[in-house]
């Protein structure tokens, strides 16, 4: 089983569009959307939800007003500024968005007026798509623990692939370089970094390549909207060459890719255009590379 993770550093470079096309081209893959706080892959894969589960990974503190003697010890020990005193009644309240669930207030309270309650911070789903089973999730707005939810989605996808003898797990990753990206990369066979020839995307691509190196995941690069700036595209090629990173494809800008998204389809299923041809070639090359890797 091969696990292909698509990331970018900078958001909006085309990760999900590429992941959707790969899903369609693979024919039979397990699909995982690890961008759990802004998941979009299901929108172009015609996903039909089969199972839904609640996700809770942390507890939140709650003050029981009847037991509270307003001593303020909880506020004094909280390092996350989650406890505040309401001005009118002198009551103490916990802001659930700031509470990290560390429990220091719970252990400190002299009157046992604080309890730690399991908090639901999102949901996760198993859905059917025409291209295979998909695992995805929706973190509640404003919640933490995205890394844990990503790990859950990935493990579930891996499990389903193993159970059904499926060859590929295609993972649409989150932007950035932090916790959810690290969780997405853990255990991956290969990372595909989708970048574009802009100063910002190059800056962020270099950072995410360092993350791949840090965690020992081999990476290749794909340049989306490669015709936007010839100079920047050339610079990406030069940089990757120097760093020994394979540039697996260049995709020219095409309005058809946006049109496909509006229609809720992967670009390769919508229209035969230059962009979809290039994505097809990329997938073939990636597949061959993975096969050679396991042979060699």
């Amino acid at each position, binding site marked *: 089983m091969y696990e292909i993770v698509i990331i*970018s*550093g*900078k*958001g*909006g470079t085309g990760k*999900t569009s590429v992941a959707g096309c790969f899903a369609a081209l693979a024919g039979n893959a397990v699909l995982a959307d690890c*961008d*759990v*706080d*802004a*998941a*979009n892959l299901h*929108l*172009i894969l015609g996903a039909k939800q089969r199972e839904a589960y609640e996700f809770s990974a*942390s*507890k939140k503190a709650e003050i029981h007003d009847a037991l509270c003697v307003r001593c303020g010890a909880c506020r004094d*020990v909280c*390092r996350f500024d989650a406890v505040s005193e309401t001005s009118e009644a002198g009551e103490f309240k916990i802001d659930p*968005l700031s509470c*990290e669930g*560390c*429990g*220091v207030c719970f*252990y*400190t309270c002299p009157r046992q007026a604080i309890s730690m309650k399991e908090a639901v911070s999102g949901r996760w789903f198993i859905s059917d798509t025409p291209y295979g089973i998909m695992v995805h999730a929706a*973190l509640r*707005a*404003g*919640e*933490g623990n*995205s*890394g844990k939810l990503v790990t859950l989605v990935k493990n579930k996808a891996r499990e389903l692939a193993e159970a059904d003898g499926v060859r590929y797990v295609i993972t649409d990753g*989150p*932007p*950035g*370089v*932090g*916790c*959810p*990206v*690290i969780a997405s990369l853990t255990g991956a066979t290969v990372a595909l970094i989708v970048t*574009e*020839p*802009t*100063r*910002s995307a190059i*800056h*962020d691509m270099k*950072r995410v390549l*360092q*993350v791949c190196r*840090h*965690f020992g995941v081999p990476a290749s690069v794909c340049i989306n909207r490669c015709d*936007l*700036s010839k100079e*920047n595209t050339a610079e990406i090629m030069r940089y990757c060459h120097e760093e020994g990173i394979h540039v697996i494809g260049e995709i020219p800008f095409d309005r058809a890719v*946006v049109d496909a*998204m*509006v229609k*809720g389809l992967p670009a390769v299923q919508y229209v035969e255009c230059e962009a979809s041809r290039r994505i097809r070639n990329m997938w073939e090359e990636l597949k061959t590379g993975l096969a050679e890797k396991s042979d060699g």
Partner: protein
Amino acid sequence: MVISIASGKGGTGKTTIAVNLALSLNGQERVQFLDCDVEGPNAHIFLKPDFYYEKPVEIPVPAVDEARCSYCGRCAEVCSFHAIAVIKDHVLTFPELCHGCGGCIRFCPEKAITEIGRHIGVVRRGVAGEIDFVQGTLDIGEAISPPLIKAVKRLIQRDQTVILDAPPGTSCPAVETVKGSDFCLLVTEPTPFGLNDLSLATHMVRKLGVPAGVVINRSDVGDGRVDRFCEEQGIPILMRIPWDTRLSELYALGEPVAQSGSEWKAVFLRLFEDLQRVV
């Protein structure tokens, strides 16, 4: 006034809006710019600040003096993050899991635990024209960004016009940035992805109690569903930027559009006026 620029979806144009708004106001207002996208800070590419100050940001993690430790296991019992473990007569710490709550130190009966700093990133400060520029950069391999975002936000000058460039998404890094703002501009595009993520971002700002308005970028691609969503939700659309190859090319080169003498300056000043009317 503190204005945060956010979006659920990445790549919708947050930094473009933030940078050009700052440049347009420069000279008219005292402007402070904080790049809170510490995982992928990009605003410096456009504003080209001269940095005069750099400070490491650390989070407190436990250091155990085993000479004093009685291996009672209380530290492991109170740690909600499994960042400290006691195995027979040895204490193991996992600093990358530590949230720095201080529980183990507080509850150790032998006072055997102290705190040491663990480097997670840097905060830089500089000037770009007259703009006071602050940026955070998270170390590679580091998972938790909110403490660094907090360190960036500690430099906020509330008496100025403060522009916060937020990271994408709607989880803790975005929340940490937008929290406490007077207004949040949500940048989106009229596509199904843009709409889905705008609706998530709308939830986030409501939870935080921050008033918001929308900027629709590449407003002539896609469909009309973002417009309908904003109307239903009663969120004002404050600006529309049609697709323009020239804008993308300038962006690619790292050049802002609102330079002196450019017609864009007036466009962004109007956005600022409209925004003040809504707050």
